[in-house]
């Protein structure tokens, strides 16, 4: 009896100290309307979903300059943007990292020759609205701007064999259903300015 009581006490203590986070707690489900966002591009202009109204498919990726996983994916994201820019696909990368700024982002975009808008949103509201928790975290939006795919860019930082984002984009361009609509994103936690939200 005493043991059972102490066991429950331990459970209560754990609950009081911490909050559990499940990897599969999705803010948005497949088919949900993609939240709009307002972010600032490196040149100072404001960017939102409306900016990409001509695109058949929009790929929104939350990323940053400093996370090693995020950095490992920069070139792949840029390749995606290059390969699909003439096919009606827009790629936008949003940075919410509290310790980074437009100046550092502009430098990175120049150094790496980014062809996509690399935009900053200091509040982190956009990431929260999409349910992005890590960098990189990808969302593929179909023509009516509903979520068609969300999660990891592919299945490996070094030698990927499954290309979730590219496959989803291809499927949408061909008018086919997206076969994999969710794969857990992995990387570094987004360093929000205010973690209490």
């Amino acid at each position, binding site marked *: 009896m005493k043991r059972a009581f102490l066991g429950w006490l331990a459970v209560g*203590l754990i*609950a009081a*100290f911490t909050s559990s986070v499940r990897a599969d707690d999705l803010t948005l489900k497949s088919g949900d309307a993609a939240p709009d966002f307002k972010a600032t591009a490196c040149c100072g202009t404001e960017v939102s979903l409306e900016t990409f109204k001509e695109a058949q498919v929009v790929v929104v990726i939350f990323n940053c300059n400093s996370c090693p996983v995020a950095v490992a994916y920069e070139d792949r994201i840029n390749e995606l943007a290059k390969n699909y820019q003439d096919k009606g696909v827009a790629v936008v990368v949003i940075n919410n990292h509290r310790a980074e700024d437009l100046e550092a982002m502009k430098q990175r975009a120049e150094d790496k020759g980014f062809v996509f808008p690399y935009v900053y949103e200091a509040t982190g509201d956009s990431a929260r609205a999409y349910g992005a*928790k890590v960098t990189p975290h990808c969302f593929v939006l179909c023509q009516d701007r509903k979520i068609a795919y969300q999660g990891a860019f592919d299945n*490996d930082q*070094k*030698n990927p064999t499954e290309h979730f984002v590219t496959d989803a984009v291809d499927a949408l361009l061909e008018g086919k259903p997206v076969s994999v609509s969710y794969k857990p994103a992995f*990387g570094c936690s987004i360093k929000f300015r205010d973690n209490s939200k």
Partner: protein
Amino acid sequence: MMRIWSIVCFVVITACIFACNPGGARPPAATGSSTSGGGTTTVNRAVQTMTAAEFTTWLNGQRGKWVLVDYWATWCAPCKEKIPRVVELDKRYRDRGLIVVALSFDEPDEHAQVAAFLAEHSAQFPAMVRSEKMGDAFEGHKISEVPTYRLFNPEGELATQFVGEFDFDELERLVSSTLALDSR
């Protein structure tokens, strides 16, 4: 005589480790060593590569103990910063029923690098490296980022987890209180 018994013990323990190994053939375990002061301190630090399913089997074998799993990587600065705290935690609570284990998300062929880093910090706890694709490993372990720390209860259930940015003192207080309550 003592020497013979030592050899016998070593052979038996090694045989047990291989017999309990659920994954069959694997890359050879790595041994790390560190240099401190004037000499080299060799820490016998075998690091296995392991799938998430194999890790679950390993975890199931630890029933009856509280287990703290440190999901980390050598490319993750916050993970590396916390390793000395994890080493201290292991030293402090090992004899009070806590098993600490570090599971790295480095590349499978980087297990020697993982072993060397842990050896530098004189880590004595078991350590593994993922053997699957990174995405499959994160999905298999049901985590999305490193560092993640998970405390499993003696029934093998996830009791709680600490993810990303948090105060390590809080984790230590929780471990301390939980073990104190459980030992009564």
